[in-house]
């Protein structure tokens, strides 16, 4: 529970920290798409250099990012494994009927592995360097055009900011309840699967109860303070687009050009 890095904010004052959340969001989402342009080792090396540069600029130790990968590592390895087994082509090393381990399979598996890790790293950069509240402001601003289509953008971003706001509380509370049940003799991560699942009941029930209570308190407080959902509101925190934000998007454009030049056309060499 304590190892969960994804979605946590690390305070700091790096170049990346000071970027506008809109720029960071656009750049990160764009990066995920641009990643699919890579198709040979030159492009992957280039993307790794870019990712490393961004991580270094964020001024947060690489160990934090690696910890962010850890909860997802089995999912990634499973996908890579399937890719390795079911891609044919090139030199074949192991042949078991429909299942083969081939040169192309291994290369493809490795590329997919890189792709996953880079996606996680880059999205972790965004969440680690942006306050959750700024992130929702950014999202709200980016989704604003959808308002014309009657999408309740403001409500959605309010919901998002409230849930993000309570993640740390929920984690602290989980820790507290776990400690309390441990003190009453519960042993976590022991025994059969069924037994382990049973030990979760004494944790989740109190957490549900307290979350529901808190939600009700919150709703009451909002109502008392006159919150209404269907009014046009101004914002307290103003986002300001600066030169460095434009620069960061230009960097993304340059990255695209570089990838287009470096990538090999057609399949195989």
């Amino acid at each position, binding site marked *: 529970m304590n190892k969960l890095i994804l979605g946590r904010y690390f305070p700091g004052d790096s170049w990346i920290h000071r970027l506008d959340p809109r720029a960071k969001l656009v750049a990160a989402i764009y990066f995920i798409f641009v990643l699919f342009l890579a198709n040979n080792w030159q492009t992957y090396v280039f993307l790794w250099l870019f990712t490393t540069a961004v991580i270094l600029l964020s001024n947060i130790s690489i160990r934090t990012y690696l910890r962010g990968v850890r909860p997802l590592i089995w999912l990634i390895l499973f996908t890579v494994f399937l890719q390795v087994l079911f891609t044919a082509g090139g030199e074949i090393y192991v042949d078991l009927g429909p299942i083969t381990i081939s040169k192309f399979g291994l290369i493809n598996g490795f590329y997919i592995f890189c792709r996953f890790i880079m996606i996680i790293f880059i999205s972790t950069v965004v969440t680690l360097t942006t306050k959750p509240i700024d992130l929702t402001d950014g999202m709200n601003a980016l989704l604003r055009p959808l308002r014309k289509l009657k999408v309740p953008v403001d409500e959605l971003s309010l919901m998002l900011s409230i849930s993000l706001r309570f993640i740390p509380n929920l984690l602290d509370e989980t820790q507290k309840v776990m400690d*309390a049940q441990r*003190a009453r*003799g519960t042993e976590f991560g022991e025994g059969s699967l069924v037994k382990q699942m049973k030990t979760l009941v004494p944790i989740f029930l109190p957490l549900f109860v307290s979350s529901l209570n808190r939600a009700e308190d919150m709703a009451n407080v909002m109502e008392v303070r006159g919150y209404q959902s269907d009014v046009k509101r101004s914002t307290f925190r103003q986002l300001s687009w600066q030169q460095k934000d434009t620069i960061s998007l230009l960097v993304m454009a340059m990255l695209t050009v570089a990838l287009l030049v470096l990538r090999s056309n057609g399949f195989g060499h």
Partner: protein
Amino acid sequence: MAMQISFDSVTADYQIGPIRSPRVLDSIDLLLPAGSFTAVIGHTGSGKSSLLKAMNGLIIPYDGKVTIGQTTIKAGKNKKALRAIRQKVGMVFQFPESQLFAETVEKDICFGPLNFGVSLVEAKSIARVVLKQVGLEPSILSKSPLSLSGGQKRRVAIAGILAMQPDILVLDEPGAGLDPIGKREILQMITAWHKEKKLTTVIVTHDMDDVALYADDVVVMEHGQVVKHDKVRSFFTDVNQLNEWHVDVPQARSLQLQIEQETGIKLPGVCLTLPELADALIEVGIV
């Protein structure tokens, strides 16, 4: 059987999420004798709660060792020791009602004993005894803990700890958030249980009147260190020293000091409770 608690140059960190608080306990040496009733006081963040958690193996020191009775906890794996310690040490957290989860009060109280291998029949009979001890009616056993009032929930939660029949009772502000009468009743109930079962009890509190009324010894914590460990009566003697730690004085003692200043007469002894103060006033003939 009462057990002693000893801390031997214990240093520990506390980690929650990515935030690591270094040295929440900083080379602590402390000996709480068997059968003692100790109050731990200090500011928020001074390490009181961490001290309690270390007594239950919820915080493992990276340096030094904690000894509970015959069992020792130090850095590294302590699986067996932890189980033994958690059976002997009953820990009541702050706002313990947030740990209630079972469908009925009875099941919740039985949860602890069952985890430590007590039979269901025995656990149920213990539940009845402890429920009476915390001042609740047996009819409550079949109710859902969530349907109870705040004060009742608190009592049920405490009963769930007492049901483990611990030799050591550790409580983190058991009266927090209750009305004055409810708080007094809870503390009196704990004191009665402490005497009856000859427990070693440690309690965290912010209320100096609680310290004066219920505790024998007092431990002051500051920045993860124990700055004072003394008998309650001698602790409240030197008021200047108390001011330095920003520690309040119990009401009776404060009144005593005021009377001494106004009349210029020094009362015999340190008065911690109002009856004591009344006796002292009669003795010197002021009233």
